[in-house]
């Protein structure tokens, strides 16, 4: 019997596309556009698989996964997402997700990934560039999860504000070498290689606000 799958994405257009990709190999039991609706539908329908995105109106994707972990331990959650940074990947697996597929995947990769997860394997899109032996953190072992330390967050914020290494060192009263080692550590943990990418990450995660939002200029 085809695995029963419940789909969630806040973009209706994307949801319709997912249905068209998956309806041959899976039994699509429902489509929802918000986090609360997803939890409610999952509990009612008890699907084998839940496909979801990080950003969902109401309850966000990670919270949904954590909730379903306790309420429906037999249901496996897979993110199908546009977020390609390691922080999101780690958070997803730490919450209890079993798969992580980028929206950059082909429809064939998506089907294969979901079939593997339905057979009990975990799946991570190869484009994320993780080493083959990278073990996703589970809900039990949160060790090595993507959370940055308070000091790392400070360094990241100052980098994103445009401070030079020297300025950060004097601001925090540490050596330039220590600043550089923090920065390297942050880059490695987040899988982000450039100052520009670190800055985007910091803005997107609310560590600092962009100077002007586009809507304010309308």
């Amino acid at each position: 019997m085809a695995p029963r799958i419940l789909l969630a994405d806040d973009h209706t257009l994307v949801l319709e596309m997912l249905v068209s990709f998956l309806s041959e190999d899976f039994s699509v039991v429902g489509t929802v556009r918000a986090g609360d609706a997803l939890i409610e539908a999952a509990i009612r329908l008890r699907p084998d698989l839940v496909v979801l995105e990080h950003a969902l109106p109401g309850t966000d994707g990670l919270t949904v996964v954590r909730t379903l972990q306790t309420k429906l331990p037999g249901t496996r959650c897979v993110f199908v997402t546009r977020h390609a940074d390691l922080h999101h990947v780690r958070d997803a697996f730490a919450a209890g997700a079993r798969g992580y597929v980028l929206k950059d995947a082909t429809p064939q990769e998506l089907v294969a990934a979901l079939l593997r997860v339905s057979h009990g394997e975990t799946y991570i899109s190869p484009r994320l560039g993780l080493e083959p032996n990278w073990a996703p953190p589970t809900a039990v072992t949160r060790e090595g999860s993507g959370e940055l330390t308070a000091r790392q967050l400070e360094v990241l914020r100052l980098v994103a504000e445009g401070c030079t290494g020297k300025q950060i060192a004097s601001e925090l009263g540490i050596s330039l070498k220590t600043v550089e080692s923090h920065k390297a550590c942050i880059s490695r943990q987040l899988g982000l290689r450039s100052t520009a990418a670190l800055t985007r990450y910091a803005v997107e995660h609310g560590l600092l606000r962009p100077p002007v939002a586009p809507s304010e200029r309308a």
Partner: protein
Amino acid sequence: MSGATPLPAAAAPRPRVLIAEDHTLVREGLRILLAGELDIVDTVEDGRALLGAAERLRPDIILLDISMPLLNGLDAARQLAQVSPNSKLVFVTMHADPAYVHQAFRAGAAAYVVKSSASSHLIEAIQEVLAGRRYISPIPGAELSHLLSGDPKAGAAGELSDALTARQREILQLVAEGRTAREIAGVLGISRKTVEFHKASIMRLLRLHTTAELTRYAMAHGIIASA
């Protein structure tokens, strides 16, 4: 997939469509959705590839996203007016912010469809555009009907970044994507020295001093995606 009326009958030559979208799943989804009624002449995944394909193929319709690597959809649209002036531009994007809708029409859009709407709205958009009209999919809380008639370029609605030239915006996007001067030179087919000259003029013009500040400026002005 939708209850919308079918597109023009098979007897007429099928409209030729070019799709530009960086997420493969969405790109393939659009292709599958539209291939029955339209002639999908090519699909591309970034703004620069879009310019090349549009010049080569001169499609009737171009579906394009706003956030795309190498060259965003809004800046691509302005250049498409030169390289393929008869192509009708249909934006298909996650951005529901009215500022983006204004900018899209000022850049030459014929239609604007948010990804939160159903595929029936995209079909409707394409029908309207083929009939020579403009279209905006419903966006909750936004009153945008004035963009459907008159000159969308008129009025003082949010411009991307008045201070910069097209070339400067192109370079700013590539800097904010974390590319080195050498990579940028390769993408644009200019010398590294020219890239550095442009970057320095952008910094002087905007009174910004670091790559981090340039990146934040690019995010705040819709030159690269801001989540």
